[in-house]
């Protein structure tokens, strides 16, 4: 059975695709080095328009007559109160633009003006090198370093030096952890239990927050923060998984980039932390099967966030404590063996898969 994978590696090579919704203006070129948050491309997408009916407004006989009077062309920009058309003569009738904007079309005596656009700015989610630019829309960045994937993010991107002021992977963030040293840093904590602390973190101008878990009631508060928040394990108060905590703690002081974009199964993206390193890692394509000896992370209630080692993969559907039957594995978690459905496990020790690939 194809395993779900949670990529947590001290040395990895990664390749991430960034896309505009439509073709736009690409600001980088292949071979260029970028940092997390750098602007890669941008585009303006129309969201509002107004149509001026010259025929009706001027009381003309035909659209042809209107088009002869219109003083602009498609693609021209109109400023506030610019004249669109006028009849001329002693008692000239004038139509002015109702708002500044770009003329999108002139057809059948009607002028369509784009009055508002939505600016889409595409920022780099990870540091690295621009590997490819496709059709002014898609930019692929490759990089090397430590990679830690997570479970949930509040949609923001940021970077800064890693800071750890809590006592352990289960410790909750509290205001005393947000002293001056945290300013501009990516703060580490096992969990966060209240919205007030999140607000105070914003006031302390931290660059980002990586926590193991948060209660789901804090989702709205987390989403409203101006800094990225990445949750490694999920919802509740289970702290951070040991492997992620260890890896992050050994990189304190180094610059980390957080891409706290929410998990999107269709695009294959999930929130992740990258610490760029001048090493050569390996790309992992995500294809592996469940096997004894693998370290796994449990992603479902009630064991979410726990990690263990697969001792045995059941050859047939196993009977679970819930009474259901499903493909499962016996997983040793803190010296206790539990039967966990394979669908609830993410393989996090993939070094053996990479070794197998290179043989």
């Amino acid at each position, binding site marked *: 059975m194809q395993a779900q994978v949670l990529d947590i590696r001290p040395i990895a090579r990664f390749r991430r695709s960034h896309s505009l919704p439509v073709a736009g203006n690409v600001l980088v070129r292949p071979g260029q080095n970028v940092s997390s948050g750098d602007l890669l491309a941008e585009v303006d997408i*129309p969201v509002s*328009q107004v149509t001026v009916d010259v025929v009706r407004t001027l009381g003309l006989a035909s659209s042809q007559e209107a088009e002869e009077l219109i003083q602009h062309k498609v693609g021209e920009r109109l400023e506030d109160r610019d004249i669109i058309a006028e009849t001329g003569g002693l008692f000239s009738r004038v139509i002015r633009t109702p708002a500044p904007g770009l003329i999108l079309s002139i057809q059948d005596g009607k002028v369509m003006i784009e009055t508002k656009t939505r600016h889409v700015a595409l920022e780099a989610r990870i540091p690295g090198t621009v590997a490819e630019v496709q059709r002014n829309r898609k930019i692929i960045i490759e990089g090397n370093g430590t990679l830690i994937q997570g479970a949930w993010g509040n949609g923001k991107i940021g970077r800064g030096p890693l800071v750890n002021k809590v006592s352990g992977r289960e410790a909750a963030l509290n205001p005393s952890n947000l002293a001056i040293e945290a300013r501009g840093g990516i703060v580490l904590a096992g969990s966060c239990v209240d919205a007030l602390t999140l607000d105070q973190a914003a006031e302390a101008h931290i660059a980002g927050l990586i926590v193991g878990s948060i209660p789901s009631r804090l989702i709205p508060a987390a989403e409203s923060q101006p800094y990225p928040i990445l949750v490694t394990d*999920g919802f509740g108060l289970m702290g951070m998984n040991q492997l992620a905590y260890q890896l992050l703690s050994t990189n304190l002081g180094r610059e980390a980039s957080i891409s706290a974009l929410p998990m999107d199964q269709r695009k*294959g993206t999930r929130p992740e932390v990258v610490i760029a390193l001048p090493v050569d890692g390996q790309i992992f394509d995500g294809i592996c099967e469940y096997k004894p000896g693998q370290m796994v992370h449990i992603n479902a*209630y*009630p064991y*979410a966030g726990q990690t263990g080692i697969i001792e045995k993969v059941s050859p047939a559907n196993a009977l679970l404590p819930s009474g259901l039957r*499903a493909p499962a594995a016996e997983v040793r978690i803190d010296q206790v063996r539990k039967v966990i459905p394979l669908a609830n496990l993410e393989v996090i020790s993939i070094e053996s898969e990479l070794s197998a690939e290179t043989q």
Partner: protein
Amino acid sequence: MGTTSMDAVSLIALDLGSVNVRAHLFDVADGQYRFIASGVAAATIHAPYFDIGESIYQALDRLEKISGRILLDKDANLTIPSQAGGEGADGLVVTYSCGRPLNLVTVGLLGDASLEAVNQLAGSVNGRIVESIGINDRRPMDSRADAVLAARPDLILFAGGTDNGASRSVLKMADLVCRILQMMPAEERPTVFYSGNQALAPEVKDLVERYTSIDIAPNIRPQIDKAEIDKVGATLSPVINRIQANDIKGLARIATICNAPPEASASAAGKIVRFLSSVNDPQKGVLAFDIGAGSSSVIAGFGGKASVNSFPFGTGNGLAEFLKKVNVQQIRQWLPKSILLEDLRDALYQKTLSPASIPATDEALQIELAVTRQILREMVREIRLRGGLTANGYDPILASGTTLTRATSPQQILLTLLDGIQPVGITTLILDKHSIISSLGAAAPVQPYLPVQVLESSAFTNLATVVTAVSDSRPGTDILNVRLEYESGKFTEATVAKGSIIALPLKPGETGKMFLEPEHRTRIEPSGLVEDFYKVNGGICGIVIDARGRPLNMPANDDEREQLYASWMVALGE
């Protein structure tokens, strides 16, 4: 495309879900079409494959192992047609529910005519109506255009005018649609589906084609008092397929060897419901529920017509959408055991991060079944709002979905369905334990005998015949006397108290005569009539009399609720 037709005998039906892909094998045995076996594999539409093809191969591989029939050749391709040695199958059909929910914009004229009809049509698509524009919309034209732009639709459903009726209004709306399309970058422009005044179809096509593709369908409202939702729905299906094929990598590839175009699962299941409603009790309708991981549906059939209602929520990757609609307390009311609201909320949101996960503990399973109940409640509420429920009740009610079929006991499934659907009258609850109903619908055009014969076989499980007794009496009051006479001549009798649920044994395959004697103005059928007796069919849970009340009100007290559930499960025979 493979050959369509009556000479196909064995058939593979693939059902592509967002969590699982199923490969079903149907073949002739003892002169009748039978469901033979299924192979199931985890869907690979997402990372790392991003292509459904791998899971199709795995599902077929499992089917080979289970059925003992060789289906794949040495290059791992499906062998079609079947060979002299018995390898392969004669035909292939595909249904899918793994597509993402679509953003739909509906455009019509009058809110109680074309716009209502096109909104109903939109309800059959797995998606959400993000904007709806009618002729009586008070917003300025520019604001309406802006609203559609902001909604970023995948499809615009456009209707209006009876045939040879309103033309100026329709063309005005067409002009609005074109204006919107003009504003959009070419890559973002949605397809337009026009099902309005046919006399204007060429003109509308000319206008819209300058900007995007347009499909012309029959008028959804050819006359003011006639709506052709079913007919137009059939022409909408290939349009949806085309849009979804862009998202479901591998679908277009498998379609080249199918005997019919792939079909959305709910739409295919609609054919079966339509058929059943035309052959069953003409006084009653037929209902079919499907609870999926990404989307769910309820199909209501009556008198040979069916309305398909799809919803973009489910127990897996559709749970996040569902949690936007309901509050956690509404789910908690269905839990038989106490759990802190905060813990329940965390468990639910955790599930949105791991949509394919399986309940590992009893508590996790109860949470999943509580979600299922509330999804059923929401679907019933929604279809009632859409005017889609008939007052006379439904018989049978079919149910499918992994969450139901993998529950630990038939009593657990039955109670989930009864709590969620809360049927009235006398009905038969049937479980589609292999999730084949949509496959049967897809097979119908290829081999019409197949679905009819498989429906009559044991592929479907008769859970119970359910009699709902509704009374205003106080709980504990005796409201109904029941006598069940068996074919053997023996009988059993029971008195049912308000607030209780009981089960009388009658096995699948057996029939009996049920005599009902309501007391204290207890109502059974919505029509109010009570027959001298009812001929009833047996089910795994027998004949169930549900006198718990409608609507069902669950106690807020955790201990009370736990005791109540335990007593109901005992009463049902667990």
